[in-house]
């Protein structure tokens, strides 16, 4: 009976996200257009005809990889990152619209409500990620065949889910601290862009060392997004990247724990009301 209640609540939250997503026609379009521009325009302009050397951490069977192929896992990460941040935006929206109160007064543990919210948001992220792959990769493949075959993207599914969960839980954690919808621009500047650019999504990290940007290199190595991208890159080629897997699992647990703590009435709402009153 209790299990049924938990499943119904998860279903309710997921359906709500899907209904809202399907009402916002432009959201799926922009979720695909953004990485598509990077793939068709940026990669075409920046990529070299000779390909790119992935460096020491190389999951490809060759040391010279087509740039279109190299940035695809990073662009997949971009879709998941934006979608994860959209989840945080929807939490802030729920708080502003009062719907959050309905969620927090439902007869379910608060940790479960947040976990269900995370899962429902990740479902949307995965849908968008695979829409990007299904639409864009066959087009690129016509001109520059990939080493990664289509089944590779299916093999990568559990790792894409894990990466989506990590970024979604980061979004949940941010929603604890983002008080208004207007602050989302700050999230773009201080979370999404640094996370994406200071990672191995667009270039192999040895290039940073080569160019003398040692500090940025260390930042990129400390960035969990780097590990997520490399984990997907490895998985799509049928390899398991243990470090990436561990970092994603640990970060998901930490971000989710902190988010749950942030939504605890003793820790968060009191703090907010104190701020309001005093």
């Amino acid at each position: 009976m209790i299990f049924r209640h938990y499943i119904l609540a998860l279903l309710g939250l997921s359906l709500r996200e899907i209904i809202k997503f399907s009402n916002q026609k432009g959201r799926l379009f922009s979720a695909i257009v953004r990485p598509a521009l990077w793939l068709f325009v940026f990669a075409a302009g920046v990529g070299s005809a000779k390909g790119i050397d992935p460096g020491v951490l190389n999951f490809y069977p060759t040391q010279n990889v087509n740039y279109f192929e190299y940035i695809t896992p990073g662009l997949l990460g971009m879709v998941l990152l934006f979608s994860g941040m959209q989840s945080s935006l929807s939490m802030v929206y729920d708080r502003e619209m009062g719907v959050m109160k309905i969620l927090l007064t439902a007869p379910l543990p608060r940790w479960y409500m947040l976990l269900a919210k995370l899962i429902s948001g990740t479902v949307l992220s995965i849908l968008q990620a695979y829409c990007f792959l299904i639409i864009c990769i066959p087009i690129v493949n016509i001109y520059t065949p990939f080493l990664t075959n289509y089944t590779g993207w299916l093999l990568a599914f559990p790792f894409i889910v894990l990466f989506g969960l990590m970024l979604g839980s980061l979004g949940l954690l941010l929603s604890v601290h983002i008080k208004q919808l207007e602050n989302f621009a700050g999230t773009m500047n201080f979370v999404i862009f640094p996370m994406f650019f200071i990672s191995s999504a667009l270039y192999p990290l040895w290039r940073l060392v080569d160019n003398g940007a040692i500090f940025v290199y260390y930042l990129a190595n400390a960035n969990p997004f780097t590990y997520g991208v490399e984990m997907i890159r490895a998985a799509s080629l049928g390899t398991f990247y243990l470090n990436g897997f561990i970092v994603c699992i640990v970060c998901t647990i930490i971000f989710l724990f902190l988010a749950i703590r942030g939504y605890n009435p003793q820790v968060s709402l009191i703090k907010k009301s104190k701020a309001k009153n005093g």
Partner: protein
Amino acid sequence: MLKNKLVLEINNVKKYYNSFLALNNISLKINSGELVVLLGPNGAGKSTLFSIITGLMRADSGACLINGYNIADNTISALKNLGVVFQQPTIDLELTVKQNLLFHSRLHGIDLNLVKKTIYEELVKTGLEKKINNKARTLSGGERRKVELIRSLLHKPKMLLMDEPTVGLDPGSRTDLLRKILNLKKTKSLSILWTTHLVDEAEKADKIIILNKGIIKTAGTQSEILSLAKEKNLANAFLKIVKGE
């Protein structure tokens, strides 16, 4: 037999915001089928007490029991017995009326086959059945409140909390809502705690509690309050009690 069952019990609740004492030793009891109005001016502590009862906030001391379950220790069981209409609208404007109600039902683990019939019947009673597939955004303030009231009762709670539910409603919608609440109390033996700063909304209550600056100034029936304040109308009695004359 149900009449005297204690549904809400608040014992010596205290709440501080830093050093500011927002609620000072609040105690109250509500029995089954009772309509209690918590009357107080703005800043009296009504919303703080409301947040404590709904578990959105924790009291610094004291206990709040809903149908015997302590909201702090046994939150889930306590919340199962509670229906809430918040002061701020809490309806999802992007969903239709039906989607909003089904969403709530799923959160409460209600059998959807049973609840679909209930939803339709309740919408018919409130004259909203034609708007079942309309987005909540297209409803008027009064209609949204009606949907929120239907939603708060879908899981058949023992206790209904209404935090200034008439804010922003026109006089017709206010009267409508009050009539509906009185009807629910009568037919379903529902216990209701209604917070307001509008004295006329308290006139039909079984018990009135006057709260000011975090302290219960007085509690009793309308006639008890009138005789205590030596006034003939509730508005004057309320002002006299709040001002401490």
